[in-house]
């Protein structure tokens, strides 16, 4: 057949190319540009090669922030995924309870992030906050502005309160999609509640849980607004996560070169871990034998 060759079709992808260029590619290339040069002002710049990368990699405060960040994201996944699944399992399957719980669960997801930080500042204040007053009233000294552990607990509580709903909603959607016959077969085969969960519900939730884990990992790894508002990275550096440290370097100290180099490393870490999680989750429990 004689196919007409017509390259005009490329114009159809042009809008996407333009939008992606301005929203992603050009900003990213700017960062690359900053990461390999020392820029003093317009027209004044020196090419420095990998110097900024060497700088940031030997920065001990950055390494501390990185470990803090991994600890934080690890805890987030360890708490939010099982908790979200548990809540989803306990949710009503039908009736008026379904829309009510869905709306209640969605509420934390709808609140602007720095408002969440503000809510938790007030909630945990030892003098006027409901949580702070009750805990201190029970004889436990609790002050997230003074004790690093208290600050961590507060940040974790806030994070779990804010985002577990997302895991729950995804898991619930996955559970609702399982045909009734599976549960009937399990009852006939005499499966316990645990066996039903382990052999039916969990495998059938694989897809949605993969998405939940990826989203929660990426989001928690990039967390900024809530802890920034709540603790400002303190007390000391105890809740200075990667993005908070990055902003301190870039905006606070105006070290654009190291900040750019660091941003690229940051980006690569998120990309690498998301890829590893995805590969692992897609393979678990699908091989023969």
């Amino acid at each position: 057949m004689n196919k007409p060759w017509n390259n005009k079709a490329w114009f159809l992808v042009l809008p996407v190319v333009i939008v992606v260029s301005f929203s992603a590619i050009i900003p990213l290339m700017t960062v690359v540009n900053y990461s390999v040069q020392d820029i003093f002002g317009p027209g004044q710049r020196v090419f420095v090669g990998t110097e900024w990368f060497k700088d940031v990699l030997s920065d001990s405060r950055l390494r501390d922030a990185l470990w803090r960040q991994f600890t934080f994201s690890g805890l987030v996944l360890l708490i939010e995924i099982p908790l979200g699944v548990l809540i989803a399992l306990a949710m009503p399957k039908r009736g008026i309870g379904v829309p009510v719980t869905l709306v209640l669960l969605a509420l934390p997801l709808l609140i602007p992030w720095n408002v969440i930080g503000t809510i938790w500042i007030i909630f945990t204040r030892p003098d006027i906050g409901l949580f702070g007053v009750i805990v201190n009233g029970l004889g436990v000294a609790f002050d997230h502005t003074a004790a690093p552990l208290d600050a961590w607990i507060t940040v974790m509580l806030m994070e779990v309160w804010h985002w577990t709903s997302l895991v729950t909603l995804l898991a619930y959607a996955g559970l609702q999609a399982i045909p009734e016959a599976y549960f009937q077969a399990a009852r006939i085969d005499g499966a316990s509640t645990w066996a039903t969960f382990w052999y039916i519900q969990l495998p059938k939730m694989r897809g949605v849980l993969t998405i939940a884990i990826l989203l929660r990992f990426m989001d928690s790894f990039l967390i900024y607004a809530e802890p920034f508002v709540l603790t400002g990275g303190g007390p000391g550096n105890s809740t200075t996560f990667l993005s908070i440290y990055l902003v301190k370097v870039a905006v606070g100290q105006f070290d654009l070169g190291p900040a750019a180099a660091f941003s690229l490393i940051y980006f690569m870490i998120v990309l690498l871990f998301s890829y590893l999680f995805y590969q692992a989750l897609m393979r678990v429990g699908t091989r023969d034998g």
Partner: protein
Amino acid sequence: MAAIEFQDIAHSYEEIPGQESDWAIKPMDITWKDGGAYALLGPSGCGKTTLLNIISGLIQPTRGRLKFDDLDVTNLPTKEKNIAQVFQFPVIYDTMTVYGNLAFPLRNRAMTKRDIQMRVSEVAEMLDLTSDLNRRASGLTADGKQKISLGRGLVRSDVAAILFDEPLTVIDPHVKWQLRRKLKEIHERFGRTFIYVTHDQNEALTFADQVAVMNEGRILQVGTPQELFENPSHTFVGYFIGSPGMNLLPCSLDGNVAIVDGGRIQLGSRAGTPAPKGDLELGIRPEFLKLDREKGEGAVEVTIVSVEDLGTFQIATVQLGRQVVKVKLWEKQEISPGPGYLSFPPERTKLYADGQLLMG
């Protein structure tokens, strides 16, 4: 193993069942004999699946008692009821191997490893699954998966009955008959009670010794395929079984003669029976009618509207007054549209009042 007995069982999905249509299963008494091969035949939505789920305990009947032999099991949980069920869509445990799937019901009942191994390999051999035992079950084809579902029922030695809920719906046509034959073979070898739900009469008639025809929550007739064909006790059975189904003609009665739109049709002897009440219908299977060019004794005059040749036989559509009658003819008989005479053999001609058989 046990006979399964329904005592006045009825079920409704409504909280408070009011009118008759709220009942998915209308009150019924029926006994499924031990070791029988039953088919439960009926159109979609007639309550077949509900009935199965009552037996397996997935549904608690609204009223009535369910007995296995003389043991009342109405309130026993599914797990303790010793019933296996194969569903319309194959249910397998994706993450397990074929072996794991077959062993699952036994593991849940805490059998020893050796016993499990023995039972599973025996069942796998019978279902031709031996070579797949170490494969992941999710990699099998639909019929393989359905065999696993069946196998999970067969491995349990305590199973009183295996219920099939339209198990061949998702199976390719060319594999269907193989699997159906396999089922029959397994039934003969194990002697378990099989109850097989389907809306396909061919499937029901080839599989079962006894067919129960169901409609609107009632079992209308239980019998061998031959009984259902020759002696349907309800017009629905006559109409539902057979292709084409029984001809049903509204009629009135004059002694031993039925009058259909002016045509007089001689019935078999019904001496001594009281005059019937209700809407009367005359029923006759297309296979038993005789269609001729010449007037025979007792034949009524009809108009032949059309003749379809279906290979081994022909279906003639015939007008008797305002009624349309289908007649099944052998291929050899030469017949063409125009006037003709239709005769009704009296011993094959049935009379129904309000759907129920009066005499045959």
